[in-house]
């Protein structure tokens, strides 16, 4: 469909029309991707094509907007925790942590030490699950079907472990203001201990199966090059900025919880392309396993929830607080303003995926459509998180 050959009213909806205004003569406007709201996690991108090449691209957001920030205004702080599990289904515990961390900072609540370790362990396990989901789904996007079977085999083990303390498999609401809902029992800890060597054994297999594969290398090497300066300009975080060679990780740059006590590295890659981001995430598997291993050894006995933890009727003190954690996709930030009333006055959620996605319009310019899909996947986007 050439947009110029058709009258405006049949040339598509508002976004397409608006986008088509600046189109070049003879170019093709293409809507990429499904956007039906009932399918969770899909993205619509309007692209202007010249043959096989992309002239311009524009992501269309808002299909999964669920007003989480507005909902925070009508719920008390403790009642808002279930929402945080639903912002990003991939790394739900990262969001749990960002919110309860912000409330704890605002109210000056000390978290018991054991709870901090429990948080780190579960959060890192969730990060592994999130990276495995990305790994399987990304390769599925690139046309490789088998890897997702291997990824979900391992991911299933993590979900089984996390199901014991949290009771759910995807949208966790496990953290509480002042601790966590349930302690990790001995059975759960022994399963985590058994999981670490299992996962370590799987990593070389992943390398053999996919990472070294010539087809994958040809697909992702040298495409989607993002200069560090561009990353900074767009506020990209997480594996995207680390794949461009900047060792920025909230766990080290703005340390929280017990991360300063733990010994781990921040993997980076100087390749700056889709391959670089791929390598960073693969390297993070090992680092997460290292963190969990250390936490299991260092974990003290004790309570996991502070005494007198806030009840749903608890009112946050007047003031404001910002707390950021490192999620699987980057820096998750929660900014709270409280006027001392029943509900929080304002809750601002900073989603890493939003900034990472905004890079796409910049990077995809001039690439082949097939490469654009590979670039989009390498940004590891979870759409509900972007729309919130």
């Amino acid at each position, binding site marked *: 469909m050439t947009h110029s050959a058709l009258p405006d009213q049949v040339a598509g909806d508002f976004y397409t029309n608006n986008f088509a205004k600046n189109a070049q003569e003879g170019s093709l406007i293409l809507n990429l991707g499904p956007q039906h709201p009932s399918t969770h996690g899909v993205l619509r991108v309007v692209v202007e094509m010249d043959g096989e090449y992309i002239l311009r691209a524009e992501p269309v957001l808002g299909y999964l907007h669920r007003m989480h920030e507005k909902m925070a205004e009508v719920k008390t702080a403790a009642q808002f925790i*279930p929402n945080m599990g639903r912002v990003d289904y991939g790394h739900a515990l990262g969001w749990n942590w960002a919110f309860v961390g912000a409330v704890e900072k605002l109210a000056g609540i000390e978290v018991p030490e054991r709870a901090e370790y429990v948080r780190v362990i579960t959060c890192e396990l969730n990060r592994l699950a999130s990276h495995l989901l990305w790994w399987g789904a990304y390769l599925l996007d690139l046309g490789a079907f088998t890897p997702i079977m291997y990824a979900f085999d391992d991911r299933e083990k993590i979900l089984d472990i996390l199901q014991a303390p949290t009771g759910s498999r995807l*949208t966790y609401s496990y953290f509480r203001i002042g601790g966590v809902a349930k302690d990790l029992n001995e059975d759960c800890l022994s399963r985590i201990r058994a999981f670490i060597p299992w996962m370590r054994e799987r990593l070389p297999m992943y390398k053999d*199966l996919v990472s070294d594969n010539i087809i994958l290398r040809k697909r992702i090497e040298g495409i989607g090059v993002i200069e560090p300066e561009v990353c900074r300009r767009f506020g990209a975080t997480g594996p995207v900025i680390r794949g461009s060679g900047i060792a920025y990780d909230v766990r080290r740059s703005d340390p929280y919880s017990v991360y300063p006590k733990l010994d781990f590295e921040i993997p980076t890659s100087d390749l700056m392309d889709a391959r670089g981001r791929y390598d960073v995430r693969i390297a993070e598997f090992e680092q997460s396993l290292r963190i969990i291993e250390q936490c299991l050894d260092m974990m003290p006995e004790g309570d996991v929830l502070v005494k007198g933890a806030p009840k749903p*009727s608890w009112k946050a003190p007047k003031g404001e607080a910002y707390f950021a954690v490192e999620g699987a996709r980057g820096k998750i930030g929660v900014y709270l303003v409280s006027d001392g009333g029943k509900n929080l006055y304002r809750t601002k959620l900073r989603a890493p995926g939003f900034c990472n996605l905004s890079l796409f319009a910049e990077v995809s310019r001039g690439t082949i459509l097939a490469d654009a899909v590979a670039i989009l996947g390498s940004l590891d986007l979870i759409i509900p998180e972007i729309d919130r």
Partner: protein
Amino acid sequence: MNAIKEAIKTVSDLWSLMVGLRVTGKYFLEPQRTVRYPWKAVSNIGTFKGHLELVGGGQKDPFKPRCISCGMCALACPSHCITVVKKKAPKPTPEEEKALAEAKANGEKTKDKAPKDPEKFVYDYSLCSLCGTCIENCPAGALSFTGNVYMAGYSRNDFLFDLVVKLRDSQAPAPAEPAAVPAETSEA
């Protein structure tokens, strides 16, 4: 020289495909990892948080809820999926009324006769986000999650339960026979 390099590179590239195929072949010969569902079920259903249920054991009766109808759960719930209906006090008989008036006249403290267990405990599973806030805030320990993972229904109303009825019905094993209604709960 370049041609040789090129040839070696091609061979190593092709070799990477063989390595991948070897992994696939190895796993092909391994036992099945998935569970063949209708014939076999996964082993960890017990830790799953299903819908809410009332814990029995009120007044030493395992089918009477321990709930004291305080309404803390309904207040705590972020999604407003719980409605607790309190039982009304049974209408006093003329003799009781007389005794009550006498007691009041003598300046004695009168005891509220209203039973504590709820008349109705309406729970809308379709709204519930299974966060457990109600359970944590229950002073009587009267709520818990079930491990029911097989919940399915044809309409929205299938997910609207009265948990008191559900608990009472759980004593009747055969669904064909309607559960005997205890006299004390039916009169209220």
